[in-house]
């Protein structure tokens, strides 16, 4: 896909995120905006996907969102990819909606394969799905996304140890390194240390995408990650992003982790992100 088309998707996804969160005065715009470019590239440029959604996902790449609070970007990307009507984005966080505050399979939303939101569980699930692919002689891949603050949950390190020890080389786990979490920067809440050397010490193949909000850098990084699969090691991408990317007043801090813009702030944010593919 041309970069222009990906750019259009990014702008439209940002608008979706902002409008969804504003409409219910709740949700998590910061991390959603920070991962928008990544998820747009992943779904439109990288993953091999079947036309129809089936839970078992045989012969297609699968994606697991572990940091489920960035559901707005996940929902927008899924809808714009055609998993469900974009109009349904207007039901986000409403009663009787398939678009729950955090993603779930419970309401049968196509594109979602496990519930997430309670943090730290997604990597284990991704490993299980990767094991099933190996058992099924299915050479397609498993992708997962995790917050950096989320790595404070101990279950991740059980999973990180297991994945390396069992050569899960069909798994590409991406860490959204934005350095922010609810209570402040990760450095002030609980310093993460050197994530690259930590993953490497556990036996992972680690690559970094320094410009985690740049479409070209993400394409290059994910393409490189794919080249590294099948070599006995799980692959970790450290994706350095800016929380709130694309909306000037939401960037460079943790304040917009879980806060919705008011009417005026929404107008300001939308002005910075013109409509490209039609609002829902």
């Amino acid at each position, binding site marked *: 896909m041309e970069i222009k088309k990906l750019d259009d998707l990014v702008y439209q996804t940002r608008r979706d995120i902002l409008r969804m969160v504003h409409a219910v005065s709740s949700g998590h715009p910061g991390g959603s905006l920070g991962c928008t470019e990544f998820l747009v590239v992943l779904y439109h440029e990288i993953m091999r996907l079947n036309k129809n959604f089936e839970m078992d996902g045989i012969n297609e790449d699968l994606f697991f969102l572990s940091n489920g609070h960035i559901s707005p970007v996940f929902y927008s990307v899924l809808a714009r990819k055609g998993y469900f009507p974009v109009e349904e984005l207007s039901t986000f966080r409403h009663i009787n909606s398939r678009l729950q505050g955090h993603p779930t399979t419970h309401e049968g939303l196509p594109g979602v*394969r496990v519930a997430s939101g309670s943090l730290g569980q997604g990597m*284990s*699930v991704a490993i299980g799905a990767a094991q099933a692919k190996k*058992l099924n002689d299915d050479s397609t891949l498993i992708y997962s996304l995790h917050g950096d603050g989320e790595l404070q949950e101990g279950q991740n390190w059980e999973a990180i140890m297991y994945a390396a020890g069992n050569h899960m080389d069909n798994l590409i786990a991406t860490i959204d390194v934005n350095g922010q979490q609810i209570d402040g920067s990760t450095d002030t809440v609980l310093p993460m240390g050197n994530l690259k050397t930590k993953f490497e010490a556990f036996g992972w193949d680690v690559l970094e995408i320094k410009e985690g909000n740049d479409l070209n850098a993400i394409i290059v990084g994910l393409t490189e990650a794919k080249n590294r699969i099948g070599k006995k090691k799980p692959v970790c991408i450290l994706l350095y992003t800016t929380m709130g990317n694309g909306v000037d007043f939401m960037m460079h801090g943790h304040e917009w982790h879980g806060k919705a813009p008011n009417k005026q702030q929404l107008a300001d944010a939308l002005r910075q992100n013109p409509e490209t593919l039609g609002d829902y």
Partner: protein
Amino acid sequence: MKKKYTYTEKKDTRSGFGAGLTELGKTHPNVVALCADLIGSLKMGEFASSHPDRFFQIGIAEANMIGIAAGLTIGGKIPFTGTFANFSTGRVYDQIRQSVAYSSKNVKICASHAGLTLGEDGATHQILEDIGLMKMLPGMTVINTCDYNQTKSATIAIADYDGPVYLRFGRPVVPVYMPENEFEIGKVIHLTEGKDVTIVATGHMVWEALQASEKLEELGISAEVINIHTIKPLDAESILKSVNKTGAIVTVEEHNYLGGLGESIAGLLSLNNPTPQEFVAVNDSFGESGVPEQLMVKYNLNDEAIVEAVKKVIRRKNEETI
């Protein structure tokens, strides 16, 4: 004349699980097994050696095990996880809640060493709250088996049921008295017919209930003993039918009375047919180290305790009818 139950051998229920899993290894190619460093205790060794590709040694990382099991279902596998009951439930409650139950994943959580009969290891390992934890999860089926044969049959049966299941069994050798292959999820088994009292027992306590019914017969009390292996969903029809006849009920379980079988049945009766009920269960306490038989006496989980509970409930029934 009341039917007598006898046995020729004693075996542990966990070996029934191992035997069931071995059979599934041959008949169900999609069944996979996961263990958190307790292959020997869970009797999973034969499956592991026969199907190394379908067996996952997770290490001492139960949270990861539950998550991996949930992920394996996405590729069409039927995962059976194995560890002690405490580490199968309390330790990983949120993982089961989100990644398995809420996500409707077809995971079979198989738990050995449940209850006081774990014995000498003491209260850190003797969970008495697991039935409550699991039955509260929407969509979770909860099964507690009584002997080797029933555990083997249940293990096989849950593979063909689509949905999350908690299968609870234990460590000690106990009499083998149930026929094989007499198992239907959610359907109680009537062991004896009686008219004075219904005794609904689960797990290791079913045998104690049978012993109690023989002692009660000598006292002229006719007890209807029901083997309830499935605690959720509850076989409401069978229980209500029995208490309609007997007018009194004693529930028996190796579990805290809070959150257990007795509480489920009390809820059922209060809504449909309020009936005098006595609980034979642990009285809201932790366990302790000791030989299983000693512990069962100390915590009032034996045939004598059941007899006393029956006498009490029949007194209450008679008072109410006056």
